[in-house]
């Protein structure tokens, strides 16, 4: 079974503070993704990566940075957190040979972030 682990599970941050959300996958997948999910809405793509050293902007990248230092790890960084970034964040990994989205995505359990 593919494994994607997110940390922390819950995080409370103050406005203007720096927040780092971490994701680790043990599947040797090429692609990794960060989505946010707000109550009553679907998942919105923030950043994604084709592999180590690569980060690409998704549909809502403003206010977020991403880092992919290795095949296994993908971080989401909020340099100056704002209350509007309060949400549940999901990380996912996918086989995606050749940068394709045609393979199953495996999701972590999510990180609930509250920015006060």
């Amino acid at each position, binding site marked *: 079974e593919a494994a*994607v682990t997110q940390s922390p599970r819950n995080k409370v941050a103050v406005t203007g503070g720096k927040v780092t959300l971490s994701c680790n996958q043990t599947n040797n997948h*090429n*692609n990794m*993704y960060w*989505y946010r999910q707000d109550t*009553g*809405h*679907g*998942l*919105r*793509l923030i950043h*994604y*990566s*084709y592999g180590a050293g690569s980060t*690409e902007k*998704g*549909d809502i990248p403003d206010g977020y940075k991403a880092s992919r230092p290795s095949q296994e790890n993908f971080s989401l960084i909020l340099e100056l957190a704002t209350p509007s970034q309060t949400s549940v964040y*999901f990380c*996912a990994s*996918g086989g*995606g040979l050749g*940068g*394709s*989205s*045609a393979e*199953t*995505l495996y*999701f*972590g*359990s*999510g990180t609930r972030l509250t920015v006060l």
Partner: protein
Amino acid sequence: SQWGEENLQALSIQEGEDVTMNCSYKTYTTVVHWYRQDSGRGPALIILIRSNEREKRSGRLRATLDTSSQSSSLSITAAQCEDTAVYFCATGAGAKLTFGGGTRLTVRP
């Protein structure tokens, strides 16, 4: 139907009924994923249909894809209470995968 920034839609049916959820997409896609999300968990893939397929079946699930109208559907036959969940479609080309707004399906006993 569901797409992008649209709010989560809701469907409520009786156990044993059939149900179909629709998904329309706006940009070129090579694949349509359908995921279900149970409360408090991340989404999990239930069926994937590629652009060269018109229909895909898996147990009580049936997905269709019409690339000319840029739409896909997910049908559940004889729904069970355990099918209660939120269902999302996701589309993409290359590594970018974008999710629709989702449908909250409630199956009543």
